[in-house]
């Protein structure tokens, strides 16, 4: 079913479905809730104003994820990674965990995981974030990044290996 980016009914439907995805992607790129909110807002404004007709809601979703991902990466670049990390430590508390049952990881471990993700090269990081937090499969990630499915597979694998190494270096053992 076609989706018009500026049709108010389809816009609302796309918003409901896609906002959580791009919010998570933007957050896990920036690790800053306010920045992620700005990214989502900007992505949807561009989406609405472009007046594109997408062949399906999935295509609209891929477009939005691609734009949000780029906006988030640009945000991080603009801020500078070290500066962003500094700000996060000072002003951005980690999101509180909700239930005791979920709270397997201590805050310290969570911070280590987040920092390790940020140290990954961009190509690996993007794939990992889209896979883990965007809930997308290899085929979808390939479409968003304009790369082949097998390339996504390789990057996901390498991202995991590097991540394990980085987390282990911090004295937290994955195994």
């Amino acid at each position, binding site marked *: 079913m076609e989706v018009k980016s*500026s049709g*108010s009914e389809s*816009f609302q439907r796309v*918003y409901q479905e896609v*906002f*959580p995805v791009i*919010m*998570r992607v933007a957050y*896990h790129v920036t690790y800053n*809730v306010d920045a*992620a*909110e700005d990214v*989502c*807002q900007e*992505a*949807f*404004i*561009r989406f*609405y*104003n472009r007046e594109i007709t997408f062949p399906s809601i999935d295509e609209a979703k891929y*477009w939005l994820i*691609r*734009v949000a991902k*780029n*906006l988030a*990466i*640009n945000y991080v670049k603009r801020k500078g990674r070290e500066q962003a990390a500094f700000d996060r430590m000072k002003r951005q508390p980690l*999101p509180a*965990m909700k239930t005791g049952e*979920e709270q*397997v*990881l201590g805050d310290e*471990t*969570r911070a280590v*995981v987040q920092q390790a*993700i940020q140290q990954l090269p*961009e*190509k690996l990081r993007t794939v*990992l974030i889209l*896979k*883990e*937090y965007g809930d997308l*499969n*290899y085929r979808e990630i390939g479409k968003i*990044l*304009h*790369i*082949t499915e*097998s*390339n996504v*597979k*390789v990057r*996901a*694998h390498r991202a*995991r290996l590097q*991540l*394990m190494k980085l*987390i282990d270096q911090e004295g937290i053992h*994955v*195994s």
Partner: protein
Amino acid sequence: MCLDDQVLSSYIDGELQEPWKTQVVEHISHCAECRGRYEQFARLDQMLYETRLKSDEFSTQQQRVWKYLEKTCMPAQPKKFKHKRFAFSAPAMAAAAAAMVVMLGANVFLIRGVIGEPGAEQPIPTLTAEVQQVPNGMGEEPVIGVSARAHRASAIAPQELTVDELLVLLEQKGFEVELKRSDSMTPVQSYGASPAAQQDSRGTARLGTPEETPATEKEEELPPEEQDGWSDWEDY
């Protein structure tokens, strides 16, 4: 033969097809070494999952952004304010009592020129404003009752607006509006900017800064050398 990490990674991602999937499950069940590596991947996955931003951690943001988009992007929705009355201070009252909302004829023409492309006949937007004096029961300062109606198929929904709301609406739509006194036709105040500058093809106000380049499907936000491409990345 033991499993390589790539296969385990694909398995964790739920991307391994049959019959390999079953083979991996069987192999893990009897090979301690591969099971150990699988558990490492699984543990990492669990760690990543636990750092995930939960839905209830961004529900406020989701609502806030939607409200913003509704206000700025979406076509004006009919609202439920009716016959709002408000008082003016004496000098403003004097001006307002004689005020008319005048859309400059040239602007109407321009706008029509934009939206009225061949094959897209649309009615000319018209606006009427009525201004009347209403006693407010307090003697001294009369209250000015104002009602305004906008007539146009879609861009401006028919509704009753106060002068303030009307001005805001018109400004949002990119119209240039001048308040004039009916006696002297001296401009009291002007709102908005030139429609040629703000009006886009839908007749709604354009958002964002002029220097901003919209994103395209090509990843133009990123410098070309940093685009994700597969040519510089060897597959297995």
